């Protein structure tokens, strides 16, 4: 949802700030604006929950958890992406 209220975060801005939020790098006022937006936006609340779950799950992974075929496929994709 876009913001008609000047000081309010938009969904797009929230997505841009989510990493800083998780790493506790937002200023106090910005942190509050972030959380205020989440309380008013079901989509961003779901997104935040998914990001949390992703961080938790990814934090438990080690390199050997990734099957070789999946790893090779991902590497091919990333390398091709960098060339274009």
């Amino acid at each position, binding site marked *: 949802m876009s913001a008609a209220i000047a000081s309010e975060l938009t969904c797009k801005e929230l997505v841009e700030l989510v990493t800083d939020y998780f790493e506790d790098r937002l200023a106090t006022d910005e942190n509050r604006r972030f959380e*205020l937006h989440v309380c008013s936006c079901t989509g961003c609340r779901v997104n935040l929950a998914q990001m949390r779950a992703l961080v938790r799950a990814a934090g438990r992974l080690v390199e050997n958890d990734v099957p070789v075929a999946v790893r090779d496929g991902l590497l091919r994709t990333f390398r091709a992406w960098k060339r274009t």
Partner: protein
Amino acid sequence: MFAYKFLAAGAIAPFTGRAWPQPGPRGPGAWIVAPQGDLARYGVHACRLDDLSYWHDEELWLVELGEPILSARFQLAAGRGRLLQRIIAWNAASAREYAAACAWRARDLVAEALDRAGLAAEASALRACLDLVSLQASATAIAGDAARDEPRGLVAYAAGAAMRARQGRFPEASLQSAHLGAALTAGEAGAEHERAWQARWLAHRLQLREIAARSGVGASAV
């Protein structure tokens, strides 16, 4: 000091994921103590009545806060807090009522704006709506392709609020109404006015002052 706190289902803090100790037969839940550091940032956060409409979640609780207590915009931050009582009147049914109330409030505001702009027929069409389905349809038709800063375009906020209310999405229904308030006044004061109206609706519908009084905390509840 006594205040209110929205929590996710199971008395879970929505941002930290912490499970709040719940009250039992022997009294209030155990105190949660804030970590050292910036109180505004890391304190135990809670709402005054006026703050309720900014912090929606599935459960609403009456809480007691302990010193130090910082009064900030949109919330209180305290050194410690504990749950006293769940406000059971805040539930799926009352949340839907709240969403609908926000949508009808948006309808009334845009109808007044249409009247002021000389669009009486459109205002009447909105006032004739008896349910959220017809409100959404009528408001969508009136708004058409108009920009949201035009009188007809403002009706899109009422359409949006009605749609969200029909979906039971009370946070977005109330936000649409707050956005409309901002658009009508070209500033945040209008949004805050609408948030204040929503907070009064919640306090009245959920009988928060009465609950606080019955709990013996009425005199010091915020």
